[in-house]
């Protein structure tokens, strides 16, 4: 008998493990991990040149740089790898084989998302691990507590990006199209939406409520404000939108609102992707 029946396991778990192995051996995940780890080390070492910029007891330039790295690079990895994985498997009829075996569309989407998120989390662990090791020699251990919060938020944002990538992979016809669309969406959430809000502000007064909406409408911005709150706890570094929400609702409810928004950024794209996959030809 060819098939190895000794390792029979839950179908969804088996599919997730299979997808994770495929993704972690792929070029996208490897490049993402190495790139993010290298960037984290460089930013941390540059931060060490000035002790005033170090530490997570408050938000300094080095902390902001590490925060931006954690929000941008693994997010790009999650979005692009998620999109290309699902679209590639659709294009190659592998999804068709799996669906014919009785795996539900939402199951396929969930397994892909979990695997892509795992690859992004491994990138984050590598980058944060190296940064922590360098920082531990230079700053008090208590300053590194903020790292834990930042890491947790970065995982949430990467998971949201992976969910968006999975949705893009469901919509795209080809792997190439999915990759290009994912890069475009990543640019939009990383830079484009901020520029849009700034541009609108130049012509008309953008109210605080609109700014809060802009934060919630962008998973990266949601994560950025949440991470700043986790590090600092004060409203000084949050900008007008974050400051307004904290003043209005208080710190804990604001963090709960932002965390809920992040969960929604994961759940809604996944449910949409599952629905789309169920209603279109694979």
């Amino acid at each position, binding site marked *: *008998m*060819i*098939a*190895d*029946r000794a*390792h*029979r*396991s*839950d*179908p*969804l778990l*088996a*599919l997730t493990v*299979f997808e994770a*192995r*495929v993704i972690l*051996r*792929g070029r996208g995940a490897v490049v993402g991990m190495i790139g993010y780890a290298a960037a984290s080390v460089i930013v941390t070492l540059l931060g060490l040149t000035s002790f005033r910029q170090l530490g997570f007891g408050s938000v300094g330039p080095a902390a902001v740089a590490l925060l931006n790295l954690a929000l941008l690079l693994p997010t790009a990895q999650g979005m692009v790898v998620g999109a290309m994985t699902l679209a*590639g*498997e659709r*294009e*190659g*009829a*592998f999804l*068709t*084989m*799996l*669906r*014919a*075996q*009785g*795996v*539900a*569309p*939402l*199951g396929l989407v*969930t397994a892909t998302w979990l695997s892509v998120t795992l690859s992004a989390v491994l990138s984050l662990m590598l980058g944060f691990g190296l940064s922590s090791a360098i920082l531990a020699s230079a700053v008090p251990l208590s300053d590194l507590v903020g790292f834990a919060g930042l890491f947790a938020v970065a995982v949430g944002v990467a998971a949201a990006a992976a969910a968006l990538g999975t949705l893009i992979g469901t919509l795209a016809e080809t792997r190439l199209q999915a990759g290009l669309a994912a890069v475009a969406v990543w640019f939009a959430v990383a830079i484009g939406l901020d520029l849009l809000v700034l541009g609108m502000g130049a012509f008309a007064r953008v109210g605080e409520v609109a700014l809060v909406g802009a934060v919630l409408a962008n998973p990266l911005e949601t994560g950025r404000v949440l991470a700043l709150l986790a590090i600092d706890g004060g409203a000084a570094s949050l900008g007008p939108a974050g400051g307004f929400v904290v003043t209005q609702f208080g710190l804990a409810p604001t963090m709960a609102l932002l965390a809920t928004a992040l969960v929604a950024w994961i759940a809604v794209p996944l449910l949409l992707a599952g629905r789309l996959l*169920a*209603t*279109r*030809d*694979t």
Partner: protein
Amino acid sequence: MLAEGLRAEASATIPAPDDVVRATVRALGKRYGRHVALDGVSFELAAGEVVGVVGPNAAGKSTLLACLAGTARHEGSATAHGRVAFLPQRAQLPGPATVAEVLSLFSALRPEGADVAELPADFVPAADRRVSQLSGGQRQRVALAAVLGGAPDLILLDEPTANLDPPSRETFFTAVEAHRANGAAVLIASPVAVDVLTGVDRVLVLEAGRLVEDRAAPEYLASLEMTIWVRLVPGRSAETLGALPGVRRTAERGQWIEVDTIEASSLPLLEALRAAGIGADEIRIGMQSGARSPGRES
């Protein structure tokens, strides 16, 4: 509970009834924009039946299989009774995965139970080899081993013998026979009629999305067009060969005379050619690869 829900939604399958029907297709239609891929196709597949689906490119063969597998939306009904195994056309397994991982995955996805078809160990490459390192034929064998595992009730195979060498083809058809003996219905699609006629009971011929023929395999095989080429030499012409028994059409093409016949008439015709003093070295034989019925063409 969530996990159950995530994997519970299977394709358009319902449990196999006690009777022998494995698939029911009624007025099946499918469009891609303005292009009609399938139009009013109806048939049934019985348990233990191996059926070939033939037709030229874009006749609707792959779409028919996808509809039955539950992976393509359609008009009309295409119902599989029981568990389906489906190998789509030119399916690509993920390159970074190993052979063992692919087979383990498909093993985990199907209900627990023994494999009906015991494929020999050398049918698939070494378990630790990655799919990206395999040749086209080896990949096809891994994909076949993955979908032919377990005991599916309906097996849908789109060009399964593509890239297979003769021993692998033989192993494949042996596996198909094992599934047939176990009560599965097998539907095999190919644009090359002769590729699917081994061990097939029945042939469905699709043209432009319509089912134009549903015939017993021997009857279909006998009506398949054949071409015999006879070397053109002085004193020999298309007209003289046209008078031989079983000849439907002749034409001179360069150094050869093209003689069209059907499979059923081929042996008497070859005897007549030999009786006319034409040696074996002056004859070339080819079965027409297209699936058009010669009866319909003439």
